């Protein structure tokens, strides 16, 4: 049997609320600490306790972090999903299970490893009765560690991090891990080929989730006001702001330069954000699809009244019940048209943890520069899962507070100014902030019916003029939004376009397509709406462009088709949405299915991810 080292996936099936996340995060972090590129994805139900939940961990020596659709190692702790879990093991793989589950083992093509978790825990006198179920999960961590070669030091490091150095829980959990190790040593015989070995590919990297990154990035962006309403998967973003504000904005006098308000609903959350943005604060809110729906009216008002705000949408499936804890990229069309009437919303599309951080601070600069609502579309997979990442980087440019007139400025202008004049020819007007003491500072804010001095009017010509300026302002935004990321230089005439968290799966699929199908592709990941000139150039260059995204209707495909009607025949939609993070498999198969000149198949399809 040939050893397979650092290139396989593990999935753990447990009951929701059984405390298995500590165990699974420990495996993930221990593998990361061993220097092996690794990704972890929590596939959880909308439930507090009882329903089946899975956690997948992928170790990849080649650095592929996307989801895989096959699992070589399956750990079954939940009787309810036992049969399904058993069936899901890849041929030749390994099946670990809690041996108090008395269900038939129907597979002969895999290695079977029973673990009497309950018996092992019972024998440990140091574990209080109440903690047996929680700590019991650590027994499978120990057994797995022994069987695939995770060393105890890295497990210790992971537990110390998780319990923030608190000795008692660290010891208790480590005790259970050691019991698992001991059991595996004495009672299990290795019959599968999957092993981990130390590498050096995670040196200098961190592990973080996108919501934490977004929160910290926003604080480095000088966030001053956050209003939010709890909603999965966005909740942890606002909670992370509560966690990090005190440390990052600590002052000697103990007073606060920020406020985080939990609103009564999303209507109020964005309302407060618009109020704060209008009054001159760096104001933001975070939500997911259902909340975004509720925020629509205010987003439209902010667009027309030209109020800078930042809205994070951590996309999920919705509305109502069903799959609210599954990931999605299906809010793009909606976000692009948020608000009634003519509308252009500036949208940022982070594709990894570093960009969640960077767009955290950049979104404020952009919102205040353009004086408009800026939406940042992340997703559940990026927002809530742990990703290995480069360390966060300190903002490279000073804050851009945009065009604000102070008392001194107004003195110089002798009070002669108008809120909605296009003085500089870039369609961005000047604004003043409440509290400005100059007698000519004030203006009255309303939606559509205002002239250049913000005076009420229902005059058609004035309205038309203002609408044209708003359109021009959106064009100005093209020069300020983040440029797309490009993976070019192959000389190919075929390209892929995508956005957000699918990059890992797409780059893996590109490697497979090139190697196994002779289909070489360039790749652009767009990072903002409106499209900057780099997107125009890219679209022109290729014969066919596959637009890959996690939704049903191909929303980016639609928007590209609208923006580039002359190239519409090039765009081929590879859209797929089932709530699961993108995998190289569906990207590859989707592209092959739409490819007009099918490349020669060089490797047998069977058994490949």
């Amino acid at each position: 049997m040939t050893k397979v080292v650092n290139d396989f996936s593990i999935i753990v099936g447990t009951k929701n609320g059984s405390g298995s996340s500590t165990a699974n995060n420990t495996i993930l972090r221990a593998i990361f600490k061993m220097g092996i590129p690794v990704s972890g994805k929590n596939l959880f139900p909308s439930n507090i306790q009882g329903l089946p939940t899975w956690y997948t961990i992928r170790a990849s020596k080649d650095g592929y972090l996307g989801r895989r659709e096959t699992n070589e190692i399956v750990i079954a702790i939940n009787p309810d999903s036992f049969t399904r879990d058993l069936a899901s093991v890849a041929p030749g793989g390994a099946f670990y299970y809690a041996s108090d589950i008395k269900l038939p083992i129907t597979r002969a093509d895999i290695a079977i490893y029973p673990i009497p978790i309950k018996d092992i825990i019972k024998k440990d006198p140091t574990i209080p009765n109440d903690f047996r179920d929680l700590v019991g999960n650590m027994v499978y961590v120990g057994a797995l560690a022994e069987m695939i070669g995770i060393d105890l030091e890295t497990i210790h490091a992971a537990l110390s991090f998780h319990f923030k150095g608190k000795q008692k829980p660290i010891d208790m959990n480590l005790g259970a891990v050691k019991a698992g190790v001991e059991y595996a040593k004495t009672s299990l015989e290795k019959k599968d080929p999957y092993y981990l070995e130390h590498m050096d590919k995670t040196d200098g990297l961190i592990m973080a989730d996108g919501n934490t990154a977004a929160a910290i990035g926003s604080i480095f962006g000088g966030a001053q006001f956050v209003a939010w309403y709890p909603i999965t998967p966005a909740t942890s973003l606002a909670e992370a702001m509560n966690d990090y504000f005190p440390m990052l904005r600590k002052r000697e006098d103990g007073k606060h330069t920020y406020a985080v308000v939990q609103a009564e609903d999303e209507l109020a959350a964005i309302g407060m954000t618009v109020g704060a943005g209008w009054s001159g604060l760096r104001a933001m809110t975070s939500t997911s699809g259902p909340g975004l729906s509720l925020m629509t009216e205010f987003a439209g008002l902010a667009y027309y009244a030209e109020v800078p705000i930042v809205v994070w949408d951590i996309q999920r499936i919705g509305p109502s019940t069903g799959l609210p804890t599954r990931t999605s990229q299906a809010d793009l069309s909606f976000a692009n048209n948020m608000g009634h009437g003519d509308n252009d919303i500036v949208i940022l599309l982070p594709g990894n943890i570093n960009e969640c951080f960077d767009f955290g601070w950049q979104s404020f600069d952009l919102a205040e520069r353009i004086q408009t609502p800026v939406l940042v579309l992340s997703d559940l997979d990026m927002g809530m899962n742990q990703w290995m990442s480069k360390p966060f980087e300190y903002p490279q440019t000073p804050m851009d507070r945009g065009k604000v007139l102070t008392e001194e400025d107004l003195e110089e202008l002798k009070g002669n100014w108008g809120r909605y004049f296009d003085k500089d020819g870039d369609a961005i007007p000047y604004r003043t902030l409440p509290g400005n003491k100059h007698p000519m500072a004030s203006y009255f804010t309303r939606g559509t019916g205002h002239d250049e001095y913000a005076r009420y009017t229902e005059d058609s010509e004035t309205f038309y003029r203002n609408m044209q300026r708003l359109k021009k302002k959106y064009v100005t935004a093209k020069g300020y939004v983040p440029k797309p990321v490009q993976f070019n230089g192959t000389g190919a005439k075929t390209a892929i376009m995508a956005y957000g968290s699918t990059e890992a799966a797409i780059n893996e699929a590109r490697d497979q397509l090139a190697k196994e199908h002779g289909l070489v592709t360039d790749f652009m990941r767009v990072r903002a709406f409106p499209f900057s000139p780099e997107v125009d150039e890219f679209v022109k260059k290729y014969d066919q462009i596959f637009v890959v995204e996690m939704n049903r209707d191909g929303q980016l495909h639609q928007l590209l088709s609208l923006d580039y009607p002359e190239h519409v025949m090039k765009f081929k939609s590879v859209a797929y949405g089932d709530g699961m993070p993108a995998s190289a498999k569906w990207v590859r198969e989707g592209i092959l299915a739409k490819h007009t000149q099918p490349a020669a198949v060089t490797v047998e399809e069977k058994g490949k991810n």
Partner: protein
Amino acid sequence: MSTLPMAGAPTNVNLVGLAKNDYRGNPTTLCQGCGHNSISNQIIAAMYELNVLPEKVVKFSGIGCSSKSPTYFMNRSFGFNSLHGRMPSIATGAMFGDHTLKGISVSGDGDTASIGMGQFKHIMRRNVNLVYIIENNGVYGLTKGQFSATAERGLALKKQGTNPYMPVDICMEGVVTNATFVARSFAGNPKQVKELIKAAFAHRGIAVLDIISPCVTFNNDETAYHSYGWGKDHEEPLHDITYVAPRNEIILEREMEAGEIREVAMHDGSVIILKNLEKGYDPTNRFEALRALEEAQRNNWLTTGLIYVNEDRATLDETYNLVDMPLNRLTEADLRPAPEMIDKVNALMF
């Protein structure tokens, strides 16, 4: 700007050197005789008499006839005419910008008690430092005469039929939701309106001021507003809906005495009953406030005056322990963590 008037300065200026005109807004576009205009005038008078710098005031409103009125007073103050029923959230966020400012907001019964009920209740819970005036006429004016949630049960309006629902009592909502200042007045009693606006402005925290402000155009039925004319036949048919009759404002001829109950004739001969609160009434006693409101409901009274006040609760900005400098004057040095903090943050990640 805040200097005292010099010797020889005109005498029609107040202590901050401003004339009443400095507190005015644009000409009103509301109907002639509308109670809302009277309230705007009393806001102007109160701010002038209180020697308030207009730059220290921010105006807010939602949508509706009432919400148009911030345009008609204090042009030198910032203002935000926001969305229907959403003024409270705009004001809540905006007041964080500069906590040294005071907010004056104007809403209506539809804007507050129908579409905006949720935000109304929550701004009271949070005790935002804001005067919250509800110009209450029991009817939707801008959409031409539908019932609002404060319309009394049995009220008949042209085209709408009879209102089958119980009314929302804004003051009752205020007291039960722990608003720190709750008062009621009547637009036809300008002196009381002005005095209550002054008291509300002086209050730190949310000051809910429910001002009954009859709609001269759409709620002029004789059965309106707790009237004795209940059930009486109409004396004349209602006006054509597009016709707005010019009318004079209803003004009380004589000041009311404490404890006095008085009937006030409306434009169309219907009657409103005003009852001044008894002398010795303790507005700091929440139990008494609820009793007074319940008594008024049972007797079909319109109890006016300061119903409840609590000066002890921290305002929202105080709760947040903000720096002395207004947040919207902080700069990058205050807001962006130092470069070395990025390493600390990275060290906190795994």
